[in-house]
């Protein structure tokens, strides 16, 4: 693992000097800012059951679907296409270090982007300047739970993107593949849950366990359960492990 800091530093450097990164960040913040503004607008029109931040986090899947493929599609596919993956594999750096560096760089960037959205409730609070609204806008439990959910679910989403990128040398194919996989594990699992009502208890519980939207609800209420942690971390490890195998076998 001694090569990981150097690989990661190089990945982050490449990320932060690339104009595409800033374009993606600006697009993300415009979209998320607009969504937050719509939520506040709705809040001003009629009373809502949930807090604005809780509603905001319920839309987490929207940026996941386009940001995660954009962030990860380039990572291994581009290296493979250019042939630089081959030169990397001839250094003592291992496949695991290479995959982990790509993963960590994309994950750090993903988390940074989400952290920037913390500015929305703070700005809204500053402009409204009312103590009553402060409790609602900056509800600690919701914000902490929501960001914790984003951070922990991000592990899985980014690893899926990295895996898709490891399978092909075309960025477009990697992007489409990661979009489809993310769609299946979020929306697909939700649809499966509705179907699973009539299935046996064993299967129903398994599908129930994999409900990403359910995890979000719990986290936004401030309920921090260890089971989702186990779900995301174990699956991330599994998918990254598969990516390492693919990189080592196909280099």
């Amino acid at each position, binding site marked *: 693992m001694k*090569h990981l800091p150097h690989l990661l530093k190089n990945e982050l450097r490449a990320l932060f000097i690339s104009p595409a990164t800033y374009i993606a960040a600006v697009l993300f913040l415009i979209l998320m800012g607009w969504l937050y503004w719509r939520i506040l607008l709705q809040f001003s029109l009629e009373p809502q059951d949930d807090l604005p931040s809780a509603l905001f986090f319920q839309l987490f899947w929207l940026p996941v679907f386009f940001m995660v493929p954009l962030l990860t599609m380039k990572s291994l596919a581009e290296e493979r296409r250019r*042939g*630089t993956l081959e030169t990397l*594999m001839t*250094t*003592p750096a291992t496949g695991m270090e290479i995959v982990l560096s790509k993963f960590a760089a994309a994950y750090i960037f993903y988390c940074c982007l989400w952290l920037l959205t913390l500015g929305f409730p703070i700005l809204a609070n500053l402009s409204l300047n009312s103590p009553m609204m402060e409790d609602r806008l900056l509800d600690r439990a919701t914000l902490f739970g929501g960001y914790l959910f984003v951070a922990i679910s991000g592990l899985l989403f980014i690893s899926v993107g990295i895996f898709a990128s490891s399978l092909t040398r075309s960025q477009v194919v990697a992007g489409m593949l990661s979009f489809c996989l993310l769609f299946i594990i979020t929306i697909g699992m939700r649809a499966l849950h509705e179907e699973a009502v009539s299935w046996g208890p064993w299967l129903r519980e398994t599908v129930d366990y994999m409900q990403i939207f359910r995890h979000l609800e719990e986290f936004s209420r401030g309920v921090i359960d260890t089971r989702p942690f186990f779900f995301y971390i174990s699956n991330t490890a599994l998918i990254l492990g598969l990516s390492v195998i693919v990189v080592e076998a196909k280099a």
Partner: protein
Amino acid sequence: MNASGPNIEVHNLHKRFGQVSAVEDITFEVGKGQIMGFLGPNGAGKSTTMRILCGIIPATSGVARICGISVANHPNEVKRRIGYMPENNPLPDDMRVVEYLRYRGHLKEIPGRKLKQRVETVMELCDLRRRARRRVIGTLSKGYRQRVGIADAILAEPDVIVMDEPTIGLDPHQILAVRDLIDSFRGEMTVILSSHILAEIEVSCDCVIIINNGRLVATGSPVNLRTEFIHNTIYDLQLQGDLAALDPLLKSIHPDLTWAPSSDPDESGFYSLTIEVPQIENIGEEILLLLQRHAEYRVRALHAVEPSLEDIFLAATKRSWNESMPEKAVNPQATEPARPPVPHPTPPDRPG
């Protein structure tokens, strides 16, 4: 690591991609400090063998050892002893030369205090220090990119350097510069370089391995290969006089001698003749003495044509085709056989 044994050992190496056999039963050894040329037509299995040696792809069967360490069992240990420059030399376009070399140095585990000085040394060696040091790799010319690739390969002072087509796409000046650079490694590092440019291998390499269709065709120094594959002696003669009467005269030197004028006479009436004797024998003096005795012939020049590596390569690959397709010889009435993947080698035109 074995200090005295060969730096590269390959025994009965096989590599199959599905049904296709890319490398078949290749065995060779390269000693410490030697420069070895890997020669073969496109698709012969050069790159595959090199990639196996570097631990990028596993062999189907056989043994490959670098400095006595098995590539299959200890790939990471081997990677510390090898510098590899792949075909087409892929480099990241968005990094500066010095940044890239430092990054690669870190990955190759060069200690921090030594790294800076080592990067400066390889940049000096590869003539990158003054003009290309701070330039972004994407803006460099092909020649400079190639130098960056070589600088990277030698950065960690590896025992073995593997270069896949290091001079491809370079202009003659750059080829000379790269060749000098490779020459300077002689005695210190073991170098394997592949090429299908024969002249380049002949100039730079101590020993040559010729492979064709994944099979080892010939191995040895260019001199040894000459004696193995070239069984005739060729002379170029420039002569004025009656060619019709020349045949019996020349045949008197050697009964199996053949000759042919390779051009019409030039302005001063001199013909260019190619004389071939089917054995290794110096008959230059006899030809000169004979023609001196006959005053009607005037000789302007006579020289022995040294068989080039190209001739050896063609002879060797031709032999390997013949060995790999014996059914052709058995059944001459059969319809035209399927063409081999590369055109069947034909003897080159002799210089006139």
